[in-house]
């Protein structure tokens, strides 16, 4: 632990500090958005959005190299892809007469496939593993500013619309009768998922980011019975998992993403076990 703290303080290794700050900043958004995902039961939609992000990353990497668009950082590609995926999935689930889960599964796979194809055609070696499973070396200082901005946007929106979002998640039909534009709120929720996913893709990776979105909220759900408290507790848990996971992975020289997820997943399983035993 002490070597981790020393590394955080070490100016030779700013990436570790950036990853930690990124994790703590993102935890705020993750606790809030993750709580909505859990109570609204749309984990699989969050999964599809997260995986589509690879499509945007792939296209951005390709554009950087082949079209010489040096400013086009992969995170912007990720952002656009996530928002597009959220919009398409939202509209599909609202209007389609097809089986919704099949369509979402298709979008999930197509997003990844497009990303891998563009990465394959991009000159030079790019390891897709970094994007799939996270690589804290990819976190830059400018990402932190983006995270602060997204945190402010999401916290403000949710503070203002907290009751409306809750009503839409709890009883969509009734919310509509009360004059709420439920389609708008549903799309806004998917947008927030998209933004949250992009925030932490570099730290934990596309494949595992959804676990970090939902596990803290799911754990909190066992201890509190108010949505607001669930959000606060989920945010704190998320901070603990990320900082604990980073410290642990640094000490043991392991990749940070999987360690963070194993920590969160383990805590979730223990919580399930405890609540099972308590109910007896």
């Amino acid at each position: 632990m002490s070597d981790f703290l020393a590394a955080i303080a070490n100016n030779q290794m700013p990436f570790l500090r950036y990853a930690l700050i990124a994790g703590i900043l993102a935890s705020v958004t993750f606790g809030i958005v993750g709580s909505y995902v859990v109570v609204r039961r749309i984990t699989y939609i969050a999964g599809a959005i997260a995986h589509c992000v690879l499509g945007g990353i792939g296209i951005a990497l390709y554009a950087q190299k082949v079209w010489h668009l040096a400013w086009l950082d992969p995170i912007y590609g990720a952002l656009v892809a996530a928002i597009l995926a959220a919009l398409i999935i939202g509209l599909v689930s609202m209007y389609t007469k097809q089986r919704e889960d099949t369509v979402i599964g298709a979008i999930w796979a197509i997003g990844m496939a497009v990303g891998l194809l563009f990465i394959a055609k991009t000159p030079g070696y790019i390891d897709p593993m970094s994007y799939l499973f996270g690589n804290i070396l990819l976190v830059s200082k400018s990402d932190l500013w983006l995270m602060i901005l997204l945190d402010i946007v999401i916290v403000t929106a949710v503070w203002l619309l907290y009751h409306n979002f809750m009503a839409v998640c709890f009883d969509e039909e009734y919310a509509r009768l009360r004059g709420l534009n439920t389609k708008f709120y549903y799309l806004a929720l998917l947008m927030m998922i998209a933004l949250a996913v992009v925030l932490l893709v570099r730290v934990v990776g596309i494949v595992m980011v959804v676990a970090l979105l939902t596990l803290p909220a799911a754990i909190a759900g066992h201890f509190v019975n108010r949505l607001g408290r669930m959000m606060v507790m989920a945010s704190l848990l998320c901070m603990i998992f990320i900082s604990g996971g980073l410290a642990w992975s640094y000490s043991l020289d392991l990749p940070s993403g999987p360690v963070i997820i194993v920590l969160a997943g383990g805590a979730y399983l223990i919580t399930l076990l405890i609540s099972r035993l308590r109910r007896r």
Partner: protein
Amino acid sequence: MTTAPDTEPVIEISGLDFSYNPQQPILSKVNISVAQFTSTCIVGPNGGGKSTLVKLILGLLRPDRGRVLLLGGPPEVTRSQVGYVPQYAKFDPLFPVSALDVTLMGRLDGRARRYCRADYQAAHQALAEMDMDSHAQSSFAELSGGQQQRVLIARALTSAVKLLIMDEPTASIDAQVEGSLMEILRCLSRRMAVVLVTHDLGFTSKFFQSVICVHGQVHIHPTSEITGKMIQDMYGSDSQMIRHDHRCSTEGHTHV
């Protein structure tokens, strides 16, 4: 907001046809009028179109033909003044909300805002009327079925002025809860029209002044005219027969 003068019906449906797809009409040629301060029961077998009728009344669905007037205006405009109580069983038992949170939802108006003091007062008042204010901070999921239902009625009352619509309130509640529900409805019907949807003919007690039978066709009966023949027509087999003796409406009736 349009509000009906006191003599106007709270619900008026004329010449309404509705289908989800053209091959299978759900409702055809529906004409219904529900007057102020009356109590009406909508009955019919499952899948007969009761819920569809309620969605049409609330403007959640649009009729293929015909017109729906709710409190004298189009439902999309006036429904915010109607109290609606959905089936409590449809809620996620793990959803983290308190009884007060649920009740406050009746005060939402589509604007982006936090609740104000008046909202909390209205919610507590409605909970108190349903004898549930001591449970305001209880988790909604931990309440019994009957208690959840009373919270949902309280939520409806925070916005209901002239009309309360309840969907299948008798589904999966025991006889005692059903008795107290009747008592609540009796109280409420003194100050507003009450419309109740049920597949449970046993609930069509003499409390209701008229019965609307929904099975593709829609017929209004004075409660006293319900016969075993009609029930058989509607439900297709022998059903337990109930007799009602109460005020009659002037609407006639034929079953096809």
